[in-house]
């Protein structure tokens, strides 16, 4: 005998539908808005997309933001993977310390961090131009900190799910160097965690406005804000393209997570 599937509760339907309406209406409205004709304001025209896709600023800022995201991911992983590995292997007493540091960015959000960074490096230390004037140093420096909690929680879960000690001992006993052990034994085993951290970082950097705008750098989000202020319909098109980037990054996390059979950590990003 098969048990009949219980029917969905009416109140559940109500809340799910209300939620779906609230979440879908702004997306649909943005789509309709982006299809309005620049002259008449009526539907439907793809001219707004043409304006954005033919704007060299769109391509150059998206390239800058993407490059910054890759640099942030690289620096972040190089910095955090060996650290968290070592904490799990040899210094478990430091785990609460590192975990505490991972919570600090929640108490020091971007708006506070940018005040501190500018006061310290610009007003007090008068740091040289190659550091202050180039997004690849100043912004990436800050973005690694913004990404730190997300990469940390992702990697920490990854390291907890593997047997760090046995893997390390086996590899070392077979004569592998520390670098080979880390690169060819440990890294492949935490690949899923590292990838989720990387995609989250990509989503963060592609959307970060606060620090970029207040330290006067041109990135994709500051370009979006500039379009918002100047051209209504192309702004809707650019907004949808930007949503597309977030979607792609977040869905990639789910895909690698599902394939690796590991639960990924997802928390809201400071906005």
């Amino acid at each position, binding site marked *: 005998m098969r048990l009949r599937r219980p029917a969905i509760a009416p109140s*559940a339907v109500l809340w799910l539908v209300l939620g779906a309406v609230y979440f879908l209406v702004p997306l649909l409205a943005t789509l309709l808005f982006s299809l309005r004709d620049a002259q008449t304001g009526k539907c439907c025209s793809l001219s707004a997309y043409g304006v954005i896709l033919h704007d060299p600023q769109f391509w150059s800022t998206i390239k800058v933001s993407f490059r910054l995201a890759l640099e942030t991911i690289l620096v972040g992983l190089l*910095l955090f993977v060996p650290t968290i590995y070592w904490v799990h292997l040899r210094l478990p007493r430091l785990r609460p310390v590192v975990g505490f540091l991972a919570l600090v960015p929640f108490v020091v959000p971007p708006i506070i961090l940018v005040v501190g960074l500018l006061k310290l490096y610009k007003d007090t230390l008068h740091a040289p131009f190659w550091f202050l004037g180039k997004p690849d140093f100043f912004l990436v420096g800050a973005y690694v*900190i913004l990404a730190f909690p997300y990469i940390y929680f992702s990697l920490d879960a990854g390291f907890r799910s593997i047997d760090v000690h046995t893997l390390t001992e086996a590899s070392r006993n077979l004569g592998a160097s520390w670098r080979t052990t880390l690169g060819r034994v440990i890294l492949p085993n935490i690949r899923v965690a590292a990838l989720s951290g990387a995609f989250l970082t990509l989503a963060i950097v592609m959307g970060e406005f606060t620090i970029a705008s207040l330290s006067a750098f041109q990135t994709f989000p500051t370009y979006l804000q500039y379009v918002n202020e100047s051209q*209504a319909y192309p702004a809707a098109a650019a907004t949808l393209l930007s949503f597309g980037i977030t979607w792609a990054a977040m869905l990639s996390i789910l895909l690698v997570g599902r394939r690796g059979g590991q639960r990924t950590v997802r928390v809201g990003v400071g906005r």
Partner: protein
Amino acid sequence: MVPFFAYAAMFLIIPAATVMVGAFRSQDGGYTLDNITSIVQTGNLREAYWESIRISLTTALLGGLFGLLIAYAAIRKGTPGWVRSAYGTFSGVAANFGGIPLAFAFIATLGTIGIVTQFIENAFGVNIYQHGFAIWSRRGVELVYLYFQIPLMILVIAPAIDGLRAEWSEASANLGASRWQYWRYIGMPVLMPSILGAVILLFGNSFAAYATAYSLTSGTGLPLVPILIGSDLTGNVFANPHEGQALAFGMFVVLAAMMLFYIPLQRRASRWAK
């Protein structure tokens, strides 16, 4: 370990410390409490904190309530599995929306020439902007913030709802308890630390938000603490260069107090986690 701690010091600890110390510095280099007291005494600065706290509290409570109801509706027995995973996936993405694109999506929806604004005007003959609504007002900002607050609540609370085991509700039903008694004596007490922790997280999430509010309200002057700090950095609206740091210090105090409540709640909530 050394590069890691050196990096954290360079880009997190020392800059944060600079803000803390700067908040207590006077213009001639001495130490003073004047920057802090001037926040309390200056009407528009005090007003900004009040406004920020009010918006954060409203969106944390409403986001928490609706997030909880939607998460429970998606997870409870009877809801098909695909509905649940659709809401889970969407929340994972939507909690990461925000900032400039989110602000514009709502301008396209409920701005002066937004799709929904015009729809309401055509269908019912009512212009909501003549009835006190504006997307850059407090109500407008709250409505937009809920777009990332509700999904964040769904993400954070879903594991706790999952932790409510079916046996508990069956056991209480077998012992003759009503649904209300089950929630009053079992469900809610187990969920409460997670709910409170999540609401605190939502409060901080909204309190620290800058980009969304900046994009919605630019130039219209809804005074929020992050906005004031931002205009201090770019335009020096304050006569005293330490005022921005004092404002940032005030934000830090609020967020740190929040963490002090959050961490023990989190520890307690994890007791029933699977």
